[in-house]
């Protein structure tokens, strides 16, 4: 089994290094093929490991080598495949395999084809390190690695100003959060003396509650950054500047869920501090509603899906915060499938529409793009949580968790958000695929994507439909590690009322969206309609003015402060001292150049002067050595 573990871990690395060999050369089809093949081999290894775990084969744990060993600190390159990490491995390798195959078609005409695969595989490797590590240090390496690859991939089209800006924003936001995470790790090491998961969690219950609370808070700050929770959420929408496969893989399915994974992985820790858990759940519910509301009015296809991701992450944090870790992980998995599918479908549409992102400029695309239409519709159905698709099982479960735990406010918020989710998902579908063929006004001739791209996407479609049926198998597997709390509503009547009520509510939202946006009277908004001038619309459209506030109250003062430091400290102190030293050296050289007159007689005089200097030194040192005792007494008398 260790062999499969190593294949799953290192195949992406090999793939990345292989593609990296060709980054400076023009597009080579085989880099894409080889990279996809290696990632698929990682997927196969993960499946083997999953089967091994399902058959009760036990946890696979290896220690590759010692990484650090100083004093009491011992950190190995240790990797573990247990019930939780194997779930994540499946999600990561499956989605990344699909995305790799898809990218072969999507990046077809791009100059950076080889470079793209290098980055993408490097991301997969980092993500595998993140999920498979058996200690916090390895997790942190993967954590930083995915951050780096995310930066590289968002800024993949680096010649675009907006792309580099978005990449930097994502990176800096993550840095801020990572500081919190690091502090959390330091606290863990400081108080438990180890960073291994098992040992650290075993030591936690004996610690002071206050300390555990702080550890939980700091770790969650890290998770907030990576999973783009409020108030560090702005980078996720801007990260849509990257290529669409990147959005599908990194900013929907895998990296952004790393925060959820961290909370799930640290479940023994968060179990000790339910008040922090409640805060996490509340923040999650808030973000779910907050992001869904912004998605309602946005006019950028990818941003809508990004806000939807944000909203679903909020759901996951609700579940994780309330202690239903397996539910969070289940929703993470289901969400990865249908959200990646949605993004890839959006990528097809973008390709067809020549990188047009405004769904109001599309319409009626279901005829030229039949398969994409079917896939995106089904993915949206799954996202909305209609029976029997994946979203129904995972999302309704979260609602039930909130209900069973008697957090009725959270329940109401989440229920309302579920309606919003259905609405904005089908608003998007309706705008893109139904109604008038508005794209004709812009002279675009859409075409369906390559066959192999569609076939590549099909595993995701299949899983988006049937993932819910794995619920009990999954539950049995994962509860070997996570608290096995089943959430059942005791009264059957309440259960049915709730389920059917939710389904009805969601269904009505979908119908309303169709009615409003699928008709032929939709035109490209020009800022004159009554709705567009209302305060609520403006606020939502401008993302609650939060980016503006950040710009105004963080970026600008920081910039002014930097200018002050630049002008006052850097120019006048640092530069001045460096220049001063250089000036002294230069001036000395300039002055003493006259000494080098070339006249031998003058040189001889200088030589004698040098001899005098050396002899004087000899005398001084000789005297000091001879009278060292006396000098010491005098100095001690002076109090030195």
């Amino acid at each position, binding site marked *: 089994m260790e062999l499969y573990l190593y294949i799953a871990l290192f195949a992406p690395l090999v793939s990345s290094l292989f593609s990296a060999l060709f980054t400076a050369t023009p597009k080579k089809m085989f880099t894409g093929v080889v990279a996809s093949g290696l990632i698929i081999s990682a997927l196969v290894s993960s499946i083997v490991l999953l089967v091994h775990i399902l058959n009760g084969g036990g946890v696979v744990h290896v220690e590759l080598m010692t990484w650090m060993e100083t004093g009491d600190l011992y950190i190995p390159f240790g990797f573990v495949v247990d019930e939780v990490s194997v779930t994540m491995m499946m999600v990561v390798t499956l989605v990344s395999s699909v995305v790799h195959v898809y990218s072969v078609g999507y990046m077809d005409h791009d100059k950076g084809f080889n470079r793209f695969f290098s980055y993408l595989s490097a991301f997969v490797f980092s993500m595998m390190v993140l999920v498979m590590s058996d200690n916090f240090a390895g997790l942190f390496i993967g954590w930083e690695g995915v951050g780096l690859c995310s930066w590289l991939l968002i800024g993949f089209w680096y010649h675009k100003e907006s792309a580099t800006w978005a990449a930097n924003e994502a990176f800096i936001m993550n840095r801020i959060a990572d500081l919190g995470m690091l502090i959390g790790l330091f606290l863990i090491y400081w108080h438990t003396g180890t960073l291994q998961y098992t040992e650290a969690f075993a030591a936690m219950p004996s610690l002071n509650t206050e300390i555990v609370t702080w550890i939980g808070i700091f770790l969650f700050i890290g998770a907030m950054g990576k999973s783009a929770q409020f108030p560090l959420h702005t980078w996720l929408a801007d990260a849509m500047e990257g290529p669409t496969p990147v959005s599908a893989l990194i900013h929907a399915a895998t990296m952004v869920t790393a925060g959820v994974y961290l909370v799930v992985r640290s479940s023994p820790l968060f179990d000790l501090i339910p008040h922090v858990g409640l805060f996490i759940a509340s923040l999650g519910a808030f973000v779910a509603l907050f992001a869904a509301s912004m998605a309602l009015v946005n006019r950028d296809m990818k941003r809508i899906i990004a806000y939807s991701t944000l909203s679903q992450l909020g759901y996951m944090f609700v579940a994780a915060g309330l202690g239903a870790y397996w539910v969070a992980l289940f929703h993470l998995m289901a969400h990865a499938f249908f959200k990646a599918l949605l993004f890839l479908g959006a990528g097809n549409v973008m390709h067809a529409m020549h990188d047009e992102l405004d769904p109001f400029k599309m319409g009626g695309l279901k005829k030229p793009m039949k398969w994409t239409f079917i896939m995106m519709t089904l993915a949206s159905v799954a996202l909305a949580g209609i029976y029997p698709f994946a979203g129904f099982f995972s999302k309704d479960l979260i609602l039930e968790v909130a209900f069973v735990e008697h957090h009725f406010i959270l329940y109401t918020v989440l229920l309302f958000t579920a309606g919003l989710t259905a609405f904005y998902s089908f608003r998007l579908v309706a705008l893109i695929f139904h109604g008038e063929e508005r794209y004709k006004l812009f002279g675009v001739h859409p075409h369906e994507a390559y066959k192999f791209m569609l076939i590549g996407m099909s595993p995701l479609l299949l899983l988006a439909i049937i993932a819910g049926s794995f619920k009990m198998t999954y539950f049995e597997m994962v509860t070997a590690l996570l608290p096995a709390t089943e959430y059942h509503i005791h009264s059957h009547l309440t259960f049915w009322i709730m389920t059917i009520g939710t389904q009805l509510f969601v269904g009505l939202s979908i119908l309303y969206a169709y009615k409003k946006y699928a008709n032929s009277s939709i035109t490209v908004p020009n800022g004159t309609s009554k709705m567009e001038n209302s305060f609520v619309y403006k606020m939502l459209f401008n993302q609650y003015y939060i980016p503006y506030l950040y710009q105004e109250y963080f970026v600008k003062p920081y910039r002014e402060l930097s200018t002050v430091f630049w002008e006052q400290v850097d120019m006048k102190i640092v530069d001045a001292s460096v220049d001063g030293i250089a000036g002294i050296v230069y001036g000395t050289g300039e002055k003493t150049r006259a000494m080098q007159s070339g006249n*031998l007689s003058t040189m001889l005089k200088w030589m*004698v002067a040098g001899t005098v200097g050396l002899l004087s030194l000899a005398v001084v040192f000789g005297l000091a050595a001879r009278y060292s005792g006396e000098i010491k007494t005098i100095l001690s008398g002076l109090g030195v």
Partner: protein
Amino acid sequence: MEIGLNHYLALSAILFSIGLVGVMRRKNLLLLFLATEILLNSVNIAFAAISHYYGDLTGQMFAFFVIAIAASEVAVGLGLLIVWHKRHGNIDLDTMSTMRG
């Protein structure tokens, strides 16, 4: 009046400084070489005196080697001097300033 080591060392120092005066003041290269001989000889006196007063032959050995060095220095130095004189027709130090910085 007993003559001690210090007398010899003082004499050596005086001769050495006379040599230095010569080195610094002579502009004629040949005479400058003569001044360096004075320096070497003054040191030889110090070596011999120390050798005598400490009852150790090492000082004399060094004096021999100094003489050997002086001899070779004269041989090479005079050769160079002659070459210079053939080229430039003089041996004045002030004209030798090709190493001007």
